[in-house]
C-alpha cells in the first residue's frame, strides 16, 4: 500500500455541508421552474399542445351544378387539390419560403405578395398559395411533411365550365374571394374560398355555395393523421335549373362564332331566357383555377372587350329597330293620323340640314305610309313622325316600352341604356335640346342607346299588346315582375303586321323568311359615325355600322323573341336577321320534333367540353370543337 493511504487528515465537513445546501437549493430552484410552467402557464401550454396535435381541415362543399331547362348539365365540378400555406410560425415561414416556392414552382415574389396580402387574416388560418396541385406538388408536400411543416393539401371541387366560352357570360365564373368579400360575408367566407365573381355564379352564389364541413384530426409530429375527433360533413350547394334551352343555346353560339356581338332569346310570355350569348367570350375554365395577372390584364385591355356581356352591357344605338317604338308611339299618341304618309325621295331637309334615307343615292321609297315605312325601313317617314311627336313624347313612350332602364334580369351588371329627353340634356350637358336631334332619335340614332335584352323585351312586349315580363334565367324564379302598358288592339295589330311584312312581304329581312312560321321582326343598322366620317376613316372595320335584328314568332302573342346584335355587321338584314331566323327555326323544329319525337338540331356535336383530368389544367380551344363550330357557322355566311 502506498504512503497516501494513511492520510488521516480530517474531512472538510463544513465544505461538505455546503454541498448539501447547494443540492437542496438547486432542486428548489428547478422545482420553481416546473411550477411556473405546469401550474402558472399550464393553460397556455395546453393550448400549444392542442394546436400541435389537432388540425382542423375544412371539407369543401361542392358547388351546385347548373342545369338547362331540361336538366342537362351545363356546369359541373371535378375534384382537385389546393395547396395551403400554414402561417402560424412567422420565422419558420420566412426562412422556408424560398424552398416552398421552388418546390411548387411558383415565383417567390408571388407567394411573398400573398403572404403580405393576408396580414390581417388570423395567423391560424392557412392561406391558399396554389389552387391546382400537380402530382409533383403532392409528392413534394408529402415527402417534406416532417421537415417543412408549412404546407397542407386540401381537397376541393373545381368548376368545370363548357369549353370555348359557351354561354360564358351568362354563367359567369368563380374566383378566390377578395379580402373585401371576406369582410362582407360576416365570417362565412374564408381566404382561399371560391365564390361567384360574375354572371349567374355571382347572382345565385348563396344557393350554389353550400356550407363547408370540418374535420378535426389528431396528427403526430410528422403531420401524419393518427386519429379523428370530429367530422362534420359538408352540405353541398344546391343545383340551379336555368331557363336556357341547351339546343337553342348551341344554335346561338354557332351562329355567332367568329363574330362580335350578342344574341338573346326570350319567351316574352314568361320572361324566360332561352338562349343568351355574347361574343367574343373568354374561357371561364381559365379563371376557374387562378388567372395570371397578365392574362387578366390582356382580357381587360382587349379592345374587343371579351369580358363584356353584350346582352346586358352593350349600350349601342338601336338604329331602325327603334322604328317599332316610334310606330307604337305614333299610333298610341293619336297625334298623327293613322294614314299619315310622306313622299321619300331618298332624303329630307329639316332645319336647314339634309337627313338621308338609307336608300339615298339609289332613288327613294316614293310615297310611304306606316306599314311600308316599317317594312322598307324608310327613314324619311320616321323623321317626319319624330318631328311631329317631339322628343319628350318619344322619350315617354320609349321609357314606358322598356328602354332607358334595366330589365331587371337576374344577372349582375346590367346597364340602363339611354333614352334622351330635353330634361336629360339639360341635366347632363346643361344645354338646351336642339330640334334636329329629335330627327336622329326618331331613327334610333343620336344619344339613344339600348342593350339587346332591352330590345327583345320591348318588341316582345309590344307584340303581346303591352305586357312586359321581367327576363330571368332561373327556371323556378319566384315573383317574376310584369309591367303592363296597355297598347290598343289596333296599334298592336298594325305594328305586328308591319313587322310581319319586314320578313314576309319583301321587306328588309325577306331573305330570312321561314316557311310555315309567322316569323316577324325589324332590322336595324346603326351608324357609329357619320357617312362622311366613315369615308375619312377609310372604311375601317371598327367604324363600320352595327347590325341589329329583333325577330319573334308567331306574329301575335309570340312564344319566342330573339334580339341579335352583330357589331360592325353593317346590315341588319344580312348579318343579324339570319341568326334570329336560325334560332327561331330551331325552336320550331324542336317543338315539332317533340310532337314527332325527333330532333333536327344535333346538339351532340357540341359536347359540353372534354372532362379535364385532375392533374391536367383545363385547356381552352380543343381543335375538334372549333372545327365543329366553324362548320356550323359556315351554314350562314
Amino acid at each position, binding site marked *: 500500500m502506498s504512503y497516501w493511504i494513511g492520510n488521516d487528515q480530517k474531512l472538510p465537513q463544513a465544505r461538505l455541508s455546503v454541498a448539501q445546501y447547494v443540492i*437542496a437549493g438547486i432542486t428548489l430552484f428547478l422545482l420553481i421552474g416546473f411550477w411556473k410552467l405546469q401550474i402558472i402557464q399550464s393553460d397556455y401550454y395546453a393550448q400549444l399542445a392542442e394546436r400541435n396535435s389537432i388540425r382542423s381541415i375544412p371539407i369543401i362543399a361542392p358547388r351546385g351544378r347548373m342545369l338547362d331547362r331540361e336538366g342537362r348539365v351545363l356546369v359541373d365540378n371535378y375534384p382537385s387539390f389546393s395547396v395551403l400555406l400554414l402561417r402560424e410560425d412567422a420565422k419558420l415561414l420566412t426562412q422556408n419560403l424560398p424552398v416552398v416556392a421552388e418546390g411548387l414552382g411558383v415565383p417567390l415574389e408571388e407567394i411573398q405578395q400573398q403572404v403580405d396580402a393576408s396580414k390581417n387574416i388570423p395567423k391560424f388560418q392557412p392561406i391558399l398559395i396554389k389552387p391546382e396541385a400537380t402530382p409533383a406538388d403532392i409528392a413534394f408536400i408529402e415527402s417534406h411533411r416532417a421537415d417543412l411543416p408549412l404546407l397542407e393539401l386540401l381537397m376541393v371541387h373545381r368548376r368545370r365550365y363548357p369549353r370555348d366560352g359557351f354561354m360564358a357570360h351568362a354563367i359567369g365564373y368563380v374566383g378566390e374571394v377578395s379580402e373585401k368579400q371576406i369582410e362582407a360575408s360576416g365570417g362565412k367566407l374564408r381566404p382561399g374560398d371560391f365564390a361567384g365573381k360574375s354572371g349567374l355564379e355571382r347572382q345565385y352564389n348563396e344557393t350554389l355555395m353550400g356550407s363547408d364541413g370540418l374535420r378535426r384530426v389528431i396528427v403526430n409530429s410528422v403531420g401524419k393523421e393518427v386519429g379523428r375527433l370530429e367530422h362534420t360533413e359538408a352540405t353541398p350547394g344546391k343545383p340551379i335549373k336555368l331557363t336556357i334551352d341547351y339546343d337553342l343555346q348551341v344554335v346561338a353560339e354557332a351562329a355567332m362564332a367568329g363574330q362580335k356581338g350578342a344574341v338573346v332569346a326570350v319567351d316574352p310570355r314568361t320572361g324566360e331566357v332561352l338562349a343568351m350569348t355574347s361574343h367574343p367570350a373568354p374561357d371561364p375554365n381559365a379563371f376557374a383555377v387562378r388567372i395570371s395577372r397578365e392574362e387578366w390584364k390582356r382580357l381587360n385591355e382587349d379592345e374587343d372587350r371579351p369580358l363584356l356581356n353584350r346582352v346586358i352591357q352593350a349600350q349601342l344605338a338601336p338604329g331602325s329597330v327603334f322604328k317599332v317604338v316610334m310606330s307604337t308611339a305614333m299610333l298610341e299618341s293619336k297625334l298623327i293620323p293613322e294614314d299619315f304618309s310622306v313622299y321619300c325621295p331618298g332624303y329630307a331637309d329639316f332645319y336647314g340640314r339634309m337627313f338621308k334615307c338609307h336608300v339615298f343615292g339609289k332613288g327613294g321609297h316614293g310615297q310611304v305610309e306606316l306599314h311600308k315605312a316599317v317594312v322598307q325601313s324608310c327613314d324619311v317617314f320616321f323623321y317626319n313622325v319624330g318631328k311631329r311627336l317631339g322628343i319628350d313624347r318619344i322619350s315617354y313612350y320609349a321609357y314606358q316600352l322598356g328602354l332607358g332602364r334595366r330589365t331587371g334580369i337576374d344577372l349582375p351588371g346590367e346597364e340602363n341604356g339611354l333614352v334622351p329627353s330635353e330634361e336629360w340634356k339639360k341635366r347632363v350637358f346643361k344645354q338646351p335640346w336642339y330640334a334636329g336631334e329629335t330627327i336622329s332619335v326618331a331613327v334610333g340614332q343620336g344619344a339613344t342607346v339600348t342593350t339587346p335584352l332591352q330590345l327583345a323585351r320591348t318588341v316582345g312586349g309590344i307584340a303581346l299588346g303591352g305586357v312586359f315580363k321581367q327576363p330571368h334565367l332561373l327556371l323556378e324564379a319566384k315573383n317574376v315582375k310584369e309591367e303592363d302598358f296597355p297598347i290598343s288592339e289596333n296599334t298592336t295589330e298594325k305594328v305586328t303586321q308591319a313587322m310581319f311584312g319586314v320578313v314576309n312581304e319583301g321587306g328588309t329581312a325577306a331573305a330570312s323568311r321561314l316557311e310555315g312560321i309567322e316569323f316577324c321582326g325589324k332590322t336595324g343598322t346603326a351608324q357609329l359615325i357619320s357617312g362622311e366620317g366613315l369615308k375619312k376613316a377609310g372604311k375601317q372595320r371598327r367604324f363600320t355600322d352595327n347590325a341589329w335584328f329583333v325577330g319573334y314568332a308567331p306574329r301575335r302573342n309570340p312564344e319566342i323573341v330573339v334580339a341579335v346584335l352583330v357589331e360592325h355587321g353593317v346590315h341588319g338584314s344580312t348579318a343579324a336577321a339570319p341568326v334570329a331566323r336560325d334560332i327561331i327555326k330551331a325552336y320550331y323544329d324542336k317543338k315539332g320534333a317533340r310532337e314527332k319525337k325527333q330532333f333536327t338540331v344535333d346538339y351532340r356535336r357540341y359536347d359540353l367540353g372534354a372532362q379535364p383530368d385532375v392533374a391536367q389544367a383545363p385547356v381552352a380551344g380543343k381543335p375538334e370543337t372549333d372545327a365543329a363550330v366553324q362548320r356550323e357557322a359556315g351554314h350562314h355566311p
Partner: protein
Amino acid sequence: MREANKIRDFDWTLLLLVLSICSMGIIEIYSATRANALAGMHWKQFWWVVIGLACMLVVSRIDYHTILDQAPLLYLVGLAGLVLVLAIGERRFGHKSWIAIGGYTLQVSELVKLIIIVVLARFYSEVRTDRLSLLDLGKAGLLTGLPVGLILLQPDLGTTIMIVPIAAVGAFLVGIQWKHAVAFLLIGALLLPVGWSLLKPYQKERIHTFLRPEENPRGAGYQTQQAKIAVGSGGFWGKGIGKGSQNQLGFVPVRWSDFILAALAEEMGFVGVLVTLLLYMFLLRRLVQNAQWAKDRSGMHIVMGVAAVLGVHVFVNVGMMIGYVPVTGIPLPLMSYGGSSTLFVFMALGLVMNVRMKRFVN
C-alpha cells in the same frame, strides 16, 4: 463477522432511492415507446438495471484503495480508449464516441468519467495541506484537461461539461484559494470567444437557440419548445400515463432518453416531477452524507466525484426540460434509456458503496 458488517453497511437507503428512480424511468420508457417501433424498450432497460446492479456489487467488493493504487494505469487506459475511439469509433448523434464490443456499442467517455473520478480522488488526497497551491491546481487542471481535450475532439460538448465539475468539486474540498478560483473563472471567460470559434456549427446553433429559443422553433429550439409544451401542458396532475399528446404523438424529441423527464412531466404532472426531483435530491444528499462519513479523504473524494458527476447530469438535464439550460444531449441518470450510461451510474454507485462499507474497517 466481517461479512456481516459488510451487508449491514451496504447503503440500503441509497439502493431504495436508486431503484425507485429506475422504476419511474422504466414506466415512462414504456409509455413513450409503447406505440411505435421501439416498443419493448423498457424491458431492455430493466435488464440494463439488473446488469448495473451486478456491476455495482462487483465494484463495491474491490477495496477502493486497490483501485486507487491502479489510478495511473487506469488513466493511461482511459486516454488510450479515447484515442482509439477517435481512430475507429462509430459516429452516432453527431459525435464519434461509440466503440463496438462484441455486438454492443459502448460509449467510452462514460468509462472515462469513472477513471477521472478515481484519478482525481487519488491526486487530491495526496495534497496534504488545506490550501491548494497553484502548482497543484495546475496539475489537477492538466490531468483533467488531457481527456477533456480528447473528448472535445469527438466532439462531445456534453460529456466535457460533466467532467470539469469533478475537478472543481475536488479543488473546492481540498481548499482552493479564492484568488485562484477567481483567476480560473476569468481565464475561462477570456477563453470563451476562443472556445466559441472552435465549436461546430450545430453547437453554436444550440447555444444561440438557448439564448433566443423562439427564433428557430423547428431547429434546435424546436426541441426545447416541444419539451416546454409537454411539461407545461401536463399541469398539476398530468394527463395520465400513455395519454400525453406531446409524448405519444412524438412531439417530444428522444422522449425515452434525454427528454424522458418532459414526457414524465406531461403524463404525471407536477406531482410526478416533484416526486422525481425529491428522489434525486435525497439521492445526491445521501451521496454527500456518505462522503461525510468516509473513512479517509480519498474515499471522500471518490464519493464527491460521483456526486459531482451525477449532480451535474441531473441538474443540467432537468434544466433542459424547462429551457434553463441549452440542449446538450445529456441523459438523466437512472431514468433515461441507455446501456452505457446506466452501467456507468451503477459502477459509480458501486464505488460509493465501497467507500461506505470501509468506514469502520481499519
